[in-house]
């Protein structure tokens, strides 16, 4: 008998069938999420299919956040927020407020995701949950609205591409650099309809907040999901972050002999910090190739890299320093909990003292409509997941993608800077710890 990938195991479990890549299955969904942009359309679909006897199949598993236009930047956005609030109240769904943060971070902090779960969201970065060993995937509003009604959805069981990283990542190199390199190698559409499965000693050594980065950006190579095998570190993280006590099923790992469409292997020790040039995430190069590029705006945040540990890296680099003249630094925590931790630890004060703009939790400039939108000719470096044309504002602006460490170094000098060139004591002395790992 051939072995199974994690994806095949989860979809078999949730569908009650012996599912392998290429099969179509109907599977029970463990949690569903939408937000202020895709939520109103999802509500329309749900009401369209259910009619008068409308009821959510499992209201306790349905989550709404208000994160893209948070706080509302206009009347239509405010009205959409009210549509969501009223629907959630009427149908007994979970609803989080404009201050609470980005859907994917809220889902994790509030304990809606466990290893082995099948989670769908009307947001393409629902792949993030793979960092916890769940199968998370983005769907449209029709898929989600019908799943609201039935608790189920059809899936094609995807093939899997495996990324194996052995060794130890050098100082200044993070999961963000790894995923930019993967996308650069596979291509923007290289994993379309497939799961990216991440393994190897360097991946196992990653703290959970970094594993989430790998999974978050699986969609940037077209992936349906991006999964890291869950382990004891996952369980500890969920206990600390979400108060969840979960045992991790040792069988929730890829079998020996699992079938992969391709396997990419990397020597983690040899990796340099990566930057993706405009205007596609696949344009990944060693940071040195872009060094010296003048940057008008640095943005640290998003569902990719807006967690406390990310912002802490920036604060440690900037503490006692000033953001470079003619460069602006915008920091947006991914959630209220992240904001509070920045407040309690002095990170917020250090950043504001350094000249940063620190905004309330949400998607911030990554949605491109408000709170830091870029003007014609602006050049930015962001810790976000996308640098499409016009993504953060003007079609005449350009966005580079990098890690929080690269963002910090860039904010200090006003030009793209290799994070290994700023004094490592600035951030390593205050190393971010996460579940026993100090990096």
């Amino acid at each position, binding site marked *: 008998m051939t072995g199974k990938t994690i994806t095949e195991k989860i979809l078999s479990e949730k569908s009650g069938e012996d599912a392998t890549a290429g099969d*179509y299955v109907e599977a029970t969904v463990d949690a569903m999420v939408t937000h202020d*942009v*895709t939520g*109103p*359309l999802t509500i*329309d*679909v749900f009401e*369209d*299919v*259910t009619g008068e*006897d409308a009821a959510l199949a499992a209201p306790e598993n349905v989550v709404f956040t208000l994160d*893209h*236009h948070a706080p509302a930047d*206009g009347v*239509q*956005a405010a009205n*959409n927020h009210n549509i969501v609030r009223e629907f959630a109240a009427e149908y007994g769904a979970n609803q989080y407020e404009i201050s609470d943060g980005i859907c994917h971070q809220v889902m994790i902090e509030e304990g809606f995701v466990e290893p082995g779960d099948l989670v769908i*969201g*009307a*947001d*393409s970065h*629902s792949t993030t949950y793979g960092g916890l060993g769940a199968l998370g995937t*983005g*769907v*449209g*509003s*029709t*898929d989600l609205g*019908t799943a609201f*009604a*039935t608790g189920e959805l*059809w899936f*094609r069981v995807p093939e899997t591409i495996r990324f194996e990283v052995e060794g130890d990542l050098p100082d200044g190199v993070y999961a963000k650099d790894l995923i930019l390199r993967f996308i650069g190698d596979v291509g*923007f*559409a290289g994993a*379309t*309809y497939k799961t990216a499965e991440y393994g190897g000693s360097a991946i196992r050594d990653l703290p959970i907040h970094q594993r989430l980065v790998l999974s978050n950006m699986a*969609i940037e190579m*077209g992936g*349906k999901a991006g999964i890291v095998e869950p382990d004891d570190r996952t369980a500890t993280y969920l206990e600390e972050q979400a108060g969840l006590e979960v045992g991790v099923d040792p069988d929730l790992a890829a079998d020996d002999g699992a079938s992969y469409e391709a396997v990419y292997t990397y020597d983690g020790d040899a990796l340099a910090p990566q930057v993706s040039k405009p205007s*596609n995430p696949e344009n990944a190069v060693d940071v040195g190739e872009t060094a010296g590029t003048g940057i008008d705006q640095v943005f640290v945040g998003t569902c990719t890299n807006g967690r406390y540990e990310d912002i802490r890296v920036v604060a440690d680099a900037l503490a006692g320093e000033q953001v470079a003249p003619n460069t602006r630094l915008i920091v947006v925590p991914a959630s209220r909990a992240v904001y509070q931790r920045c407040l309690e630890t002095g990170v917020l004060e250090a950043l504001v003292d350094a000249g940063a703009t620190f905004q309330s939790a949400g998607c911030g400039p990554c*949605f*491109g*409509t408000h709170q830091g939108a870029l003007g014609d000719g602006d050049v930015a470096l962001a810790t976000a997941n*996308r640098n*499409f*044309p*016009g*993504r953060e504002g003007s*079609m005449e602006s350009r966005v580079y993608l990098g890690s929080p460490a690269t963002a910090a170094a860039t904010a200090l000098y006003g030009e793209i800077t290799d994070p290994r060139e700023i004094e490592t004591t600035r951030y390593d002395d205050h190393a971010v710890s996460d579940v026993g790992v100090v990096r």
Partner: protein
Amino acid sequence: MSVDGTGRAWVFGDDIDTDQITPSRFLVSSDPDELGEHAFNDLRPEFADDVEPGDFVVAGENFGSGSSREHAPLSLVGAGVAGVVAQSFARIFFRNAINLGLPVLLCPGVGEIDDRAEISIDVDEGFVYDHDEEIRYDAEPLPPFLQDLVDQGGLKPYTRRKLESAD
């Protein structure tokens, strides 16, 4: 030749993402007509004014990459687009388009079609015909599971029947 429709081809290149189909600032609406007025707003500002009902969008590789926003295919429906033909599609866009009843054909080679060329598409037979160049492009057939879903009227009718049978 039986065809589902004949219209002009609006030709786009590779990697057209959903931000370019429907820029973020227009996502405050869920109304197809309103969204249709802003389809390709920044990429081809003349599109919404000049597109005629029955025209087609023709694209290269990886059309609809990026966001899950169903507003993107919905804006094409609102603009009167009769179908999207591409060399390849991003996963979520493809699924969303089928769910909305917007015909999508996966069709190698169509990136060669000239902008504004007169073309016909036939979804059942699975081909695109370029009248200007007199070239036929054969589409890849939908997988049987998806074809069955489309034949049943799409995911919404399928779900309604499922809910009724559960009562």
